[in-house]
């Protein structure tokens, strides 16, 4: 990476990050629109969770990754503490890989 490339990526990323909060200031949104914005963020997060737990790059991930995420997700569903959810997911995936499951 050249310094110029790093700075370009930084400037572009910051502009994208700043745009939301600034736009939010300029316009007063009706309640339904605010509600839709937080639903949109939830939809984006779920899409991110789905792709990052089922795909690596542009192909399907091996079973170790989605199984670990599923175990963590199940624990979260049963109201396990957050820390336990994170540790469970990582441990299950790590152990499966250790056992030769990719």
């Amino acid at each position, binding site marked *: 990476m050249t310094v110029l490339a790093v700075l370009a990526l930084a400037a572009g990323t910051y502009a994208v990050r700043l745009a939301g909060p600034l736009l939010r200031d300029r316009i007063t949104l009706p309640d339904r629109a605010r509600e839709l914005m937080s*639903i949109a*963020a939830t939809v984006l997060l779920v899409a991110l969770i789905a792709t990052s737990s089922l795909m690596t790059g542009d192909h399907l991930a091996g079973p170790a990754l989605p199984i670990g995420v599923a175990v963590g997700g199940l624990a979260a569903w049963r109201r396990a503490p957050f820390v336990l959810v994170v540790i469970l997911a990582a441990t299950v995936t790590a152990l499966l890989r250790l056992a030769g499951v990719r």
Partner: protein
Amino acid sequence: MRSTWRTLDPALLRDVLAIAASVAVSGASFGAIAVGSGEPWWIPPLMSVVVFAGGAQFMAVGIVAAGGSPVAAVLAGLLLNLRFLPFGLAVGEVLGRSPVGKLVGSHLLSDETVAFALAQREPARARTAFWLCGLSLFVAWNAGVAVGVLVGRSIGDPNVFGLDAAFPAALLALVLPALRDRPTVRAALVGAVIALATTPFVPAGVPVLLGLVGMLALRLPVRR
């Protein structure tokens, strides 16, 4: 700011520290991989402070290491970060009214900070969660990267520790409370299917954005 910290409770702090620890390890692997791929020692720390977006940083360094041009690396990184625009719209109010708060807080927008803020019921708690998570992750990521650069290749592949499962599981735990009402669940599921189905065919970052099409499912007529 003082009122922001009044709503700080030990449980929130513990949750944030758990994710900060994962981010630190992930940062260390970024530092090690970047230096290992031939970057000068000061590029990864510089990048981590000014870009502060793990996914985009891994991708940009990976593209250059594979022989791609810096321009391609920047464009791919930006594409991956475009999701911060709708995220900023959703949690914009959490950053507070002051211009300084907005200028600093915007730089701390990430998947985890947004998920933590959205998971809180009251606005005051959402503000605390955002700032606590944002600042902790900034410190953890940059400290991790510095260690990674110093220690170098001996760190190895963080996925051996299952870190790639820790992040989606953490986000899932944070997003579950928002998945209480049916229309939201429907929109999220349709969005996830669209993102998964398009992943092999479009550049990284685009599938998640395409997931927003799932919002249309909010309008579907439902049989009772």
